[in-house]
């Protein structure tokens, strides 16, 4: 794609080793410390800093504590609304998942490029979101089989299924059940990738039209810039919504496992 003054919108997703080289490998897998790993560490450190700011447990909450308590209450409400009183047990997992994805998405959007640091949105890689989705899916499976044993398979036969549909419905339910981890991981990954590609393409319009002269800069560059400001705001919204949707769908799947249908 690159060449001829074009901006390469996919370059931002390149995973590069920061230190270590291609031949640092264990059993054929490269273990060099990449920018993806670095930004995961940064997200974790930022998350820990955010949480320590708010978990001092003051009687009258300050600013930080009010923020953290707001997030906790949000996740807590989500689980009690979707799973019921049993849902309390899964608050730590869903909360970690929600906050990690939220921090990852927002860190990737920060305009740090101004200071020469290039933020890497690791949630725009299917390897990361796929692992998160598989983690959620296996927790659902473990909880389901732990609580209900083989009765968990009654998930595939909803109540009130007519007898003549019995050969068909379990098949459809099974497929829709097995597709869940893919749709969960794919949604987050594609939403982040699409947003970042769009931002880079618009940035390319602005730079190339500005370089082409005054008239194209005025008639293409300025509207593109205005659009880009709007899209950036939209991307902030999407970053929050995707983290919320991931947590929400995980809690819904947990509800299936805890309460069956």
């Amino acid at each position, binding site marked *: 794609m690159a060449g001829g003054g074009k901006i390469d919108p996919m370059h931002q997703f390149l995973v590069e080793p920061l230190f270590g080289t291609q031949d640092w490998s264990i059993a054929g897998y490269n273990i060099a410390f990449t920018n993806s790993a670095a930004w995961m560490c940064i997200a974790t450190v930022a998350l820990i800093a955010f949480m320590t700011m708010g978990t001092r447990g003051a009687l009258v909450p300050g600013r930080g504590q009010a923020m953290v308590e707001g997030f906790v209450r949000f996740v807590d409400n989500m689980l009690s609304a979707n799973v019921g009183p049993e849902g309390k047990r899964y608050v730590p997992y869903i909360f970690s998942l929600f906050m990690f994805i939220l921090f990852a998405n927002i860190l990737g959007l920060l305009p740090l490029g101004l200071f020469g640091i290039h933020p890497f949105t690791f949630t725009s890689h299917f390897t990361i979101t796929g692992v998160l989705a598989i983690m959620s899916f296996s927790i659902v499976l473990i909880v389901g089989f732990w609580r209900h044993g083989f009765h968990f398979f009654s998930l595939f036969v909803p109540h009130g299924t007519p007898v003549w549909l019995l050969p068909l419905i379990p098949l459809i339910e099974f497929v829709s059940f097995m597709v869940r981890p893919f749709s969960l991981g794919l949604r987050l990954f594609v939403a982040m990738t*699409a947003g970042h590609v769009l931002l880079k393409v618009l940035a390319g319009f602005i730079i190339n039209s500005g370089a082409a002269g005054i008239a194209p800069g005025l008639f293409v560059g300025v509207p593109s810039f205005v659009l880009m400001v709007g899209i950036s705001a939209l991307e902030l919204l999407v970053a929050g919504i995707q983290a919320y949707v991931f947590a929400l769908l995980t809690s819904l799947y947990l509800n299936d496992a805890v309460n069956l249908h």
Partner: protein
Amino acid sequence: MDPAAAKLIGAGLAAIGAGMAAIGVGNVFGSFLEGALRNPGAADGQQGRLFIGFAAAELLGLLSFVVAMILIFVA
């Protein structure tokens, strides 16, 4: 037809899917707002369902984006 041109045309056609998903997402929020204005008391309790519908409609649009990306960069 030239295969490279066919790939790009296919990727462009996949954008129709994104537009259709835009209709779907608009429909989800529009219908929610319509219902919420009729009965504001019940609106807050349905926000989870709103986002489930949004996620389902959005996923189908994102799939068309995946198809376009696969056509351009992978196929």
